């Protein structure tokens, strides 16, 4: 049994934290796990990509076409790592673009979101989610990553139960943020399981 999860986004959106929590949850479930992170220059607004491999695995990196899920905090960042997807991959992405400075200075173009989503749909099972709005509504934009973990739990892509993921999140956030994280997770979950 293997579980390959790819988490992507922009530096500062909580991608590494989400990957770490997913890893801790897998360990609690009694499974082997490797979480691979990108550090260093990625902190400066760059593209971030983490992979979480759970179960009977050795290599820390996901092979092309083998992701069970791609979870992205930004739409084009999901598409950037589409090499990991196959037609069964659950692609869970936030819908709010973060415009790269290469676009602002005019050297690159940000494609229309419709085209981005149709491209994602061609390469997997797409779930769009306004995680910014959900996170802001439950009380703080910083819970965006928790919203997306809730959505991931609802997509049935994981080898372990969603309760375990929620309890791991709650163990890893400061007590004053527990309640909004619980709500963020539940709302993210509901956004997928309607």
């Amino acid at each position, binding site marked *: 049994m293997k579980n390959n999860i790819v988490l992507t986004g*922009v*530096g500062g959106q909580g991608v590494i934290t989400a990957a*770490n929590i997913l*890893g*801790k949850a897998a*360990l609690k479930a009694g499974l*082997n*796990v*490797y*979480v*691979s*992170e*990108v*550090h*260093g*220059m*990625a*902190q*400066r*607004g*760059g*593209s971030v990509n983490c992979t979480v491999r759970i179960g009977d*695995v*050795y*290599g*820390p*990196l*996901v*092979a*092309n*076409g083998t992701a069970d899920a791609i979870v992205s905090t930004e739409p*084009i*960042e999901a*598409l*950037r790592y*589409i*090499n*990991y*997807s*196959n037609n069964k991959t659950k692609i869970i992405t936030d819908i709010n673009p973060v*415009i*790269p*400075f*290469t*676009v*602002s*200075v*005019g*050297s*690159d*173009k*940000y*494609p229309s979101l419709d*085209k*981005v989503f149709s*491209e994602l749909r061609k*390469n997997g099972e797409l779930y769009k989610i306004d995680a910014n709005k959900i996170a802001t509504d439950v009380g703080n*934009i910083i819970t965006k990553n928790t919203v997306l973990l809730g959505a991931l739990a609802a997509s049935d892509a994981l080898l372990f139960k969603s309760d375990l993921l929620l309890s791991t999140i709650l163990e890893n956030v400061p007590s004053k943020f527990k309640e909004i994280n619980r709500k963020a997770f539940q709302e993210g979950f509901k956004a997928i399981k309607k």
Partner: protein
Amino acid sequence: MEIIENKPGKNILLLGNEAITRGAIEAGVSVATTYPGTPSSEIADTFSKIAKYKIKKNKDPGFYFEYSTNEKVALEIAAAAAITGLRSLTCMKHVGLNVASDTFMTYLYIGCRGGHVIVSADDPSCHSSQNEQDNRYFAIFGGAPMFEPTTPQEAKEMTRMAFEISEELNSPVLLRTTTRLNHVRGPIKFNKIEKSKEKGKFEKNPMWVPMPEIARARHPKLIEMLEKAEKISETYPYNEIINIGKQSEWGIITSGVSYNYVREISEELNLNVKILKLGMTHPIPKKICKKFIRSCKNIIIVEELEPILENQIKQIIYDIGENVKIFGKTTGHFSRLYEYNLDIVEDVFLKIFKINKEIKKPNKSKLELPKRPPALCPGCPHRATYYAAKKAQPKGVIYPTDIGCYTLGKAKPLEMADLLLCMGSNAGTACGLAVATDEKIISFMGDSTFFHSGIPPLIDAVHHNHNVVITILDNRTTAMTGHQPHPGNDFDGMGRPAKKILVEKVVKGCGVENIEIINPNNIEKSSEAYKRALNYSGTSVVISKSPCIILENRYKRKRNESIRVYQIDQEKCKKCKTCIGKFGCPAIYFEEDESIHIDMNQCNGCGNCATVCPFNAIFNKEN
């Protein structure tokens, strides 16, 4: 704090780097030193966190830790401690070992009494480095026993055991890691934490002073040590053979993270192979290798970067006269470039084993995606310094740069990074460019880089009166690697008060006569300072003083102070795009209707866009 719990058998998830720190603590390390550098930084940062945590609780951390001025100093401090019998650890990124290499090469001649583990974090694929040099050559070059873990658990265990082996051999040892070990989290099983020694004892002995006569006597000792180390390698528990499938005459020799890919792909393709996984790769266990070679007709060697195992295995094959076919880098099967992964190893194995498996081409976006490279943060004071320097003289200037955030000045629209080699190279290359050309030279380095290796080239500039403008970007932290303190801070890596060294005093002490101290957030005055510096004949130093905005805003949030973000008055904005096209703040963007906006979530409130706007269209919300 979970990482220092003395609970043998407990399982937790740790980053490879954290696992190395845990291993050292289990071994009772007394002294740990570093100069920060990705992908090694979290090893030292974990020591720093533990020390601060314990000191805050009025407890003895059990070790001394410091962020040293540079890797050479770091190695010397820990070496001296190890010579007095204390267990010591020094960690650095791969290129850091170049800086420390002068110490490293002779240290191996004289050796140590307490165990000393030197960690090199190599970076295949140059994720955050200027080269992808293979530091396994350093182990062979200097004669250091070397270990290569494959997982965080092995990293912890190999670190712990490396102290014992180092003591047995009276030699420092090298723990060679790569990014995919340093930055991978995996399950760790705790061992008991041994109590560390508080003080060492320096025993005077002529052998600690390798004058020519002593050095000649020490070299054979180094060779003897390596012979002894080879015996240890023969019984080292992480030098092991793993059989996959049925018995066959196919063997694979591998080490480090490559083993993970080899193991997984061998199982996935149902191969019948035996894998010789080497954890101690210098000296390699020749007896084990000979036996393994004799049991094979074909051997695949899988290692990232240089063919170091491959060349040694070939030597052994020659020595024993076996007829074995080798598949590796020298046969064109594997690349000497970049890091490996499951796909690369599978692809090569399919060819070698002539397996017909349809490999679907990876999905690819038909849309062209905008690049998202790292950039200077919104509000970064370096951007303002760059802008002011360019304003002083827009053309005909060469900009040597250095290692740190300011390398990102290379990006559009600033494009102010023209030449880079390594830590401190900005000032040396500035002098060379002044000698070789008639161009104006403005170079840039950070404050931590200045202390690390920027001082000798500055002295050279003054002594030879090189016509250069050297900028020191004094943001009071080592920002790029995670905001570690440096000698310009009034606290140290253990959170204790420390003597703050002012950049300007050092510069003055080096004999620089034309020093301009600027606040980059005053762009007009800063630009005037650069003009004066450019007109000065000889060496000028511009010291640009403004704290890293990320750190500054973190402190503000802790003090519950608000960060006053800026916005654009759409009526006043003439869409000239100076703020985007010339200043280049990544928080500023334009909509499809060409109207320009500031992303409130990204703005860090420096206000410099308001200064550069020619139409006064940018304002602070609260003013």
